[in-house]
């Protein structure tokens, strides 16, 4: 079994790799993570738990892009400074 920390690590780096390139959504991420570790090693529930922790720790944030996305924290473009 992949440990929670391993999954979190990989998940975070995945999102990082997409930053500025692709608006990535949870179902897509989940699929990728499970493919990487293999179904025997990592379940949907594990990914969910890993994502929840990363969000609670504010390492990742939710965004919106015609549906909810996962992103690195950043200053919002349309915000009025």
């Amino acid at each position, binding site marked *: 079994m992949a440990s929670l920390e391993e999954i979190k690590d990989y998940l975070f780096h995945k999102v990082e790799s997409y930053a500025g390139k692709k608006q990535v959504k949870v*179902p897509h991420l989940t699929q990728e993570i499970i493919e990487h570790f293999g179904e025997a090693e990592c379940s949907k529930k594990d990914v969910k738990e890993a994502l929840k922790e990363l969000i609670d720790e504010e390492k990742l944030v*939710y965004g919106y892009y015609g*549906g*909810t996305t996962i992103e690195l924290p950043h200053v919002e473009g349309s915000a*009025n400074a």
Partner: protein
Amino acid sequence: MSDTPMIDQLETGPWPSFIKDIKRMAEKNAMCKDLLGLLEMSYKDKKTHWKHGGIVGVRGYGGGIIGRYSDSPEKFPNVSHFHTVRVNQPSAWFYNTGALRYLCDLWEKHGSGLTNLHGSTGDFVMLGTTTDQLEPIFTDLSEHGWDLGGSGSDVRTPSCCNGMARCEFACYDTMNLCYDLTNEYQDELHRPAFPYKFKFKMSGCPNDCVASIARSDCSIIGTWRDDIQQDDAAVAEYAKGGKVDIANDVVGKCPTGCMSWNGSKLSIDNKNCNRCMHCINVMPKALRPGKDKGAMILLGAKAPIVQGALLSSVLVPFIKMEPPYEEFKDLIRRIWEFWDEHGENRERIGEMIVRIGKGNFVEEVGLEPVPAMIKEPRSNPYIFYEEYFDEE
């Protein structure tokens, strides 16, 4: 002269004026004062002055806050940031005044003091605050037993009609189911993980007072399987003195032609009634839904963007709806699993069903095809047979 001559014209007339309400708050709240200015500008220019989005929210949640910025921060600095907070309403919008006063006091402290009672998904909508107020608002709300509603690709705040609390037609306990599902799906509501949004709406009978068949991915509409309960004395009462013209207004309007009236006795061929509610609506004292009550599950409504609007269509013609609703929740679990696997990005469940075919969908979620699911069978011959014989 007033700064807002155009919107001032909406203060007169018999209908309650939202401008009066904003002005009332403007006396003590700078946001409302600037909102009036911005709105006047829209009325003059005939265009909106809002910009979209903003990653705003409370820690840990992916829904419940709608970010909003204006395009004129220099002119109207106090509404430069004007975010919306969706507070999950109690079932069927019943309140005690203590609860409402609490929400008002909180909103006076942290926001514009303007609300929508209620948003189209059902939430108590607090209209207009700044990013720094969001965490304090959420902390205070949760200490007082309130939580946020949904937004984004999550389960949206479920809503229901007032059902058994004040309606004799209710065929199941809409308010209890609404409360139960909202709690059951807290994680799915606050942490968006679906291909797109998913809405539940519950009406106690086919009158569908919350428009669930037009506005929710999963419409749960009360119905019954046995005979309409009929009180002949009360029928006679309606007939007496022509209070109701039973021949024309009841029997004559029955869409299935399953009623007859011989001047003194009303007969219903219940096997052919399609539970449209018309006769019951006209004579509520004499006719009531039957005793073997439950609900019908319909799936797939959505607004027009992009492929055209859809109404929900029948998935399960009848299901008993009693706590803890295990059979129903089991079905939802199977539906979500399938949607998760096969739903495309930004595809509502109704669109997915059309794409893959309702027959296939029904099979995949473990149900048997039945005629109640359709208006009519196909008329085109393009059948994709999955079974055929091979010569060995």
